[in-house]
């Protein structure tokens, strides 16, 4: 890597910890962010000349803090900034700080930072935007592009989120065990939301939004390094790795959805699958089941099947059954119905999802699945009605073209049948 690329990576890697520590000093997101930016500018100046510091994170925290304190002092009386030569001579102080960073302090810093970003008063879209800005360091245009909104709209969203956080006041004391568990849960949920933002993208937008999945995985790995024995964080990380591993096979060259059964499994990312499987294996040993672990276990069964026909549907049905108990939701039942259809036929699956028609009346996947099940039973007219509703509810061009494919096939078959009987 070139010097500059090296520095950029070092800054990205140091960011959550450094911003977290600076936030603890200054108790204000804007000040912490500005202090970090200033430290980064100094790093770009000093590191190529002096070589990389022993501990880049400690360096950035130290310099960021000094510069911000100087800025605050300058507010009261004019005082010159220390020049770069002084700043670059930080070795001893840096060592002392690095020592302390190795302790448990920074875990709480990063957790607090993540928790602030998923403050319960913020709507989910603002939580994600704030986390991408503050923790991941993406620029406003980058985030705006990923969420398909204008720069100005995203700028406003982030500013509002910061203002709300500042008004709400943030507890800075070290969280207790119960509170920490609650925070971890909120942070995990935010990370999974972020992942799904990237995952649900399709076609032309897939390239723009795939980095959201990668960033979510990076944040989950970060959490897992801080809390290596939390089975649900292992489950969450495994779940995202196993899902993201299929990304190269999920859409064809035209951007149309390729169903699991038709995906070219040789395109799946083997390394990601291996990591996901290792994590879910580890998580299960804790015997403390949670929703992420169960979903990851389902993903693992798909990943382990060499061919679609080898899928262990009975096990998947059982896992969805425990997920329904843990987290009852019609969407989970809808997913379970796919496994039930494999095991006991489409009729059993249709009976299972029928009670949810009213509640899932605006859910694309409900009518897509219903249409497919009716088709399996040869009830073509009813299938067409379901597919028509699905098209009306589709949110992406890929979803539309996927359903259109089913409809076209129905039309062709009806044509052929018409000609045969004529």
């Amino acid at each position, binding site marked *: *890597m070139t010097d500059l690329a090296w520095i950029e990576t070092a800054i990205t*890697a140091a960011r959550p910890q450094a911003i977290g520590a600076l936030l603890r000093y200054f108790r204000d997101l804007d000040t912490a962010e500005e202090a970090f930016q200033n430290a980064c500018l100094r790093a770009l100046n000093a590191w190529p000349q002096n070589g990389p510091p022993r501990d880049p994170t400690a360096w950035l925290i130290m310099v960021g803090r000094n510069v911000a304190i100087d800025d605050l002092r300058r507010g009261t009386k004019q005082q010159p900034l220390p020049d770069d030569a002084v700043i670059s001579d930080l070795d001893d102080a840096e060592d002392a700080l690095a020592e302390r960073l190795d302790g448990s302090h920074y875990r709480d810093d990063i957790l607090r930072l993540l928790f602030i970003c998923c403050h319960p008063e913020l709507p989910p879209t603002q939580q994600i935007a704030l986390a991408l800005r503050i923790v991941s360091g993406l620029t406003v245009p980058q985030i705006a592009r990923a969420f398909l909104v204008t720069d100005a709209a995203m700028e406003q969203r982030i500013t509002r989120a910061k203002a709300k956080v500042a008004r709400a006041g943030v507890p800075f004391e070290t969280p207790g065990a119960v509170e920490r568990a609650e925070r971890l849960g909120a942070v995990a949920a935010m990370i999974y939301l972020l992942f799904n933002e990237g995952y649900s993208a399709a076609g032309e937008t897939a390239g723009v939004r795939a980095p959201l999945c990668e960033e979510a995985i990076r944040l989950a790995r970060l959490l897992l390094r801080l809390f*290596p024995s939390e089975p649900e964080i*292992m489950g969450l990380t495994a779940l995202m790795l196993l899902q993201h591993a299929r990304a190269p096979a999920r859409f064809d060259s035209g951007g149309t959805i390729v169903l699991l059964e038709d995906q070219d499994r040789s395109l799946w990312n083997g390394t990601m699958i291996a990591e996901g499987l290792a994590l879910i294996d580890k998580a299960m040993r804790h015997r403390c089941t949670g929703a992420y672990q169960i979903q990851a276990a389902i993903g693992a069964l798909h990943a382990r099947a060499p061919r679609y026909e080898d899928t262990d549907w009975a096990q998947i049905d059982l896992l969805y059954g425990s997920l329904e108990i843990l987290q009852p939701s019609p969407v989970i039942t809808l997913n379970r119905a796919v496994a039930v259809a494999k095991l006991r036929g489409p009729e059993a699956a249709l009976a299972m999802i029928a009670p949810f028609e009213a509640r899932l009346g605006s859910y694309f996947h409900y009518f897509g699945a219903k249409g497919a099940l009716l088709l399996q039973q040869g009830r073509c007219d009813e299938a067409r009605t379901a597919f028509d509703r699905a098209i009306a509810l589709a949110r992406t061009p890929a979803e539309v073209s996927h359903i259109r494919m089913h409809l076209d096939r129905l039309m062709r078959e009806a044509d052929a049948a018409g000609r045969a009987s004529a």
Partner: protein
Amino acid sequence: MLYAILCYHDEGFVGSWSREEDAAVMEKLKVVHGKLAEAGRLGPVARLLPTTAATTLRKDSEPPVVIDGPFAETKEQLLGFYVVECDGLDCALEVARDLGRANPGGAYEIRPIGLFMPGTAQP
């Protein structure tokens, strides 16, 4: 003599490489691997999954305790290793330097191998 070259680096740093940066480093490493393989000096090479996927069996109690994570929490983690045929430490160091030019940062630990069994498992 066979030498093990163990690759240590800060996982947070390596984990922050973009896919393109990672691929670029792997390309440069492949050049070094190619030269060693051609000379018949390259043994097994392994890139390890992240330490978050690791489990440790501590042998100092009975029954042994199994804990999550790698053996020790340090700044730099064991991320992979090479087994290389070398005439001596200088030669092994030379290989490590070549690898280091292709993949800067972190450290390589060089350890002579006392017993070598190739094994049967394929990654």
